[in-house]
């Protein structure tokens, strides 16, 4: 049994320590907001946070996540009220939607560290997340918009 903290909830899962975190999230915990893309940490669709840092859960063994705060897209806010979620809806960022959970999780980690990111910061933080639909310009705009919202609230 491995003990995990997922979205502030303690859970125990009966899996091999080498099982990818993504499998545990999706198959054992039913948190299917996190997506499987390439399986080799190239596309970013499976991005979740470990203690606030963005990691590719497809290539992270579950044993490495034990003891950390794991946050998935489901844990970003209880009611879609996270500034990024609001900005995403306002700007209608998604096209097919598959990569978007990963995009939002990477963006959330960026905004935690850099509340007012320049385009260069966005390029650096977001280049690990592929979007085959090419929603990049709207992702960029939505990150700037979310940063404005955070400033407005603070």
């Amino acid at each position, binding site marked *: 049994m491995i003990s995990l903290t997922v979205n502030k909830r303690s859970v125990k899962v009966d899996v091999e320590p080498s099982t990818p975190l993504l499998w545990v999230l999706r198959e054992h915990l039913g948190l299917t907001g996190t997506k499987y893309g*390439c399986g080799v940490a*190239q596309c970013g669709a499976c991005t979740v946070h470990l203690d606030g840092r963005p990691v590719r859960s497809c290539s992270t063994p579950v044993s490495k996540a034990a003891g950390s705060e794991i946050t998935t897209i489901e844990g970003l806010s209880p009611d879609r009220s996270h500034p990024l979620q609001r900005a995403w809806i306002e700007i209608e960022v998604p096209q097919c939607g598959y990569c978007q959970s990963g995009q939002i999780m990477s963006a959330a980690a960026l905004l935690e560290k850099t509340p007012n990111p320049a385009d260069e910061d966005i390029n650096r933080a977001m280049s690990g997340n592929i979007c085959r639909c*090419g929603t990049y310009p709207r992702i960029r705009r939505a990150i700037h918009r979310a940063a404005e919202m955070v400033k407005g609230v603070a």
Partner: protein
Amino acid sequence: MIRVPEIWIAANVGVPIMPRNLDAQLQSAVIHSLSNLLKERITFKNGAVQQSNFYDYQVIRMSEAPEVHTHIVPSSRNPVGIGDLGGIGVGPAVANAFFSATGRRLRQSPFLPERVLAALKT
């Protein structure tokens, strides 16, 4: 290598039923086509595709994605589906921009760095 920071595109699809979706679909097709044009190449060996994932099949990422400026031509004609219309002009636009800048022609896509370099040396 070729970098494309901005692209302008106009479309006339009759009455625009969902203008924001139209805008998104145009941006999407432009960026997807630019990715095809500048990066995506499949090669075969003994009848099998050699590339297997994004580490050997590079696609466009945030740092390379241009700003796409769209213009919907006002029209009262019957609406038609936008489809992937936005992608059609990207190859010629980039190839002609390259010709304007260098006087050299790129005739085979994708315009990979080695092909660009070879064209510049001719």
